[in-house]
């Protein structure tokens, strides 16, 4: 099993941290992982990408991800601003932080599955805000785990508590759990 995942976010929104936290949660689940940013300069607010590989075996491959099976979008507007389905393998997932149905924003397609959660509202409602920005990355990982079931949510919660001490860890764990519960799988 080798899963390749791409995260779309905005610079400063935590796409790289999302990829890294997924790798940490994978390790807790007994899986191997590899996380890396888009190789280049990033600017706050501009569209950015980050990547992760998850496998049940050590990961030897060291190259870019061109055909992800899961795409996670941290900002609803990026659904139309960048080509989020680029390279997405048939039968793969688009998982978005969105208030609207993804099928209202992206053209309907039989080639991929869709899941959404309003991660911005989740973050704001529990006060997970930094420098004026709601932190949605851990919530979106909750949505990813709900949609795909690749590892248990408790691994992600443990990873959050290990990564951030005190209240920050608790808030991120809470965001992940709430988003996990509120994720909607879109039917056709």
């Amino acid at each position, binding site marked *: 099993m080798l899963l390749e995942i791409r995260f779309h976010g905005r610079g400063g929104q935590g796409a790289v941290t999302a*990829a*890294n936290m997924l*790798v*940490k949660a994978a*390790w807790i689940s007994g899986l*191997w*992982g*590899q*996380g*890396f*940013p888009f*190789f*280049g*300069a990033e600017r706050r607010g501009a569209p950015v990408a980050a990547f992760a590989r998850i496998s049940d075996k050590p*990961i*030897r*491959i*060291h*190259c*870019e991800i*061109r055909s992800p099976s899961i795409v996670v979008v941290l900002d609803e507007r990026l659904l139309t601003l960048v080509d989020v389905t680029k390279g997405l393998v048939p039968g793969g997932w688009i998982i978005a932080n969105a208030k609207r149905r993804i099928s209202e924003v992206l053209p309907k397609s039989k080639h991929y599955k869709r899941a959404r959660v309003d991660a911005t509202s989740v973050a704001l409602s529990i006060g997970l805000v930094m420098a004026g920005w709601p932190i949605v990355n851990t919530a979106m990982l909750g949505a990813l785990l709900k949609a795909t079931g690749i590892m248990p949510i408790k691994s992600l919660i443990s990873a959050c508590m290990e990564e951030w001490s005190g209240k920050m860890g608790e808030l991120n764990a809470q965001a992940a759990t709430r988003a996990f519960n509120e994720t909607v799988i879109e039917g056709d």
Partner: protein
Amino acid sequence: MSTIKILTGNYAVAWGVKLSRVKVIAAYPITPQTTIVEKIAEFVENGEMDAKYLMVESEHSAMAATIGASATGVRAFTATSSQGLLYMHEMVWWASAARLPIVMAVVMRALAPPWSIWNEHTDLMDQRDTGWLITLAENNQEVLDSIIMSYRISEHEDVLLPSIVGLDAFILSHTLEPVEIPGQDLIDEFLPPRPPKPFTLNPENPITHGGIVTPEYYMEFRYLIEKGMENARRLIVEVAKEYKNITGRWHGDLVDEYKCSDAKILIIVAGATAGTCKEAVDVLREKGFNVGVLRLRYIRPFPSSIVRERVSSVKSVVIIDRSYSFGGGGIIGADVASSIYGSNGGPLIHDYIAGLGGRDIGVREVERIVEETVRAMESGEKGIKTLWFDLKREVLE
């Protein structure tokens, strides 16, 4: 007790330096190396490392300060990349010819112009004649382990030459992987404090070192460096074995072989792309190609006799060279060719220049390269040929 941490390649370097109980670090920041020295500075600042961290104004000074520290007998470290490494180059020569067992991490990055922060190996290869031992890691675990092993090898009195541990820009430096951190007690036993032999700078017992030598004796100094290199071949093997005994991990010694024993086609490669090649080998073997990977773990000393032996038992060889010598050819290609001079018959060798300036090398590219070489061999092509892989011809016209 060993623990697992999820680390970037750069943090794996910092952990290797911490475990090696390095006493002096002097460095100057440069992308993509910076987070190595940031992490070490943090270790020193919060008391986790008992070391002196020197802020310097350039890479030239970074190596000069590292040389000064090492000459007094302490364990010293620096790290750099690309333009910084070239700026340091004069002092890189000084360190090896002064026989100082420094370890330096080089995050391998392309050279300007045009400006590039991305991966290739030319900056590292540019140091290949300096008398440093040069190893390239395949993954972050090997990065950490190689830093520790390098001090053991470099400080051995039969070697006394510095070591570079090369890691690919971004592909390792900024990629997170699970890394096992060996227990400090284990490493303390494996790597005791640096022996003060054969001499160190000491005001109680003043000596002169590095003064002028007339043509009568200079060559002998150079010959002794080569003797150190030759001894390093043996030490690299012994130390890798000993490290395996205490940690259970084996990354190879001078080389790392993957499915080579029955291979008819051999991929020769160095650095992180080797992992991608191993994945490609599994795909290609399912398609009926008998492929193996010979990863050059060291490029200095160059594993000539192993290369010669492996190459002489296959029909074709694919080299993936992430560096180039203008007017000469692929750098690993040239070393492979000289290693096999005089072998009977000899296989077809395709030396692919690929991945310069960070251009991605994926499993599919490795498959294409191997299949193209097999077709050339079957059509009767012989000898060695340098090929620039996937050049955009349209922008060259």
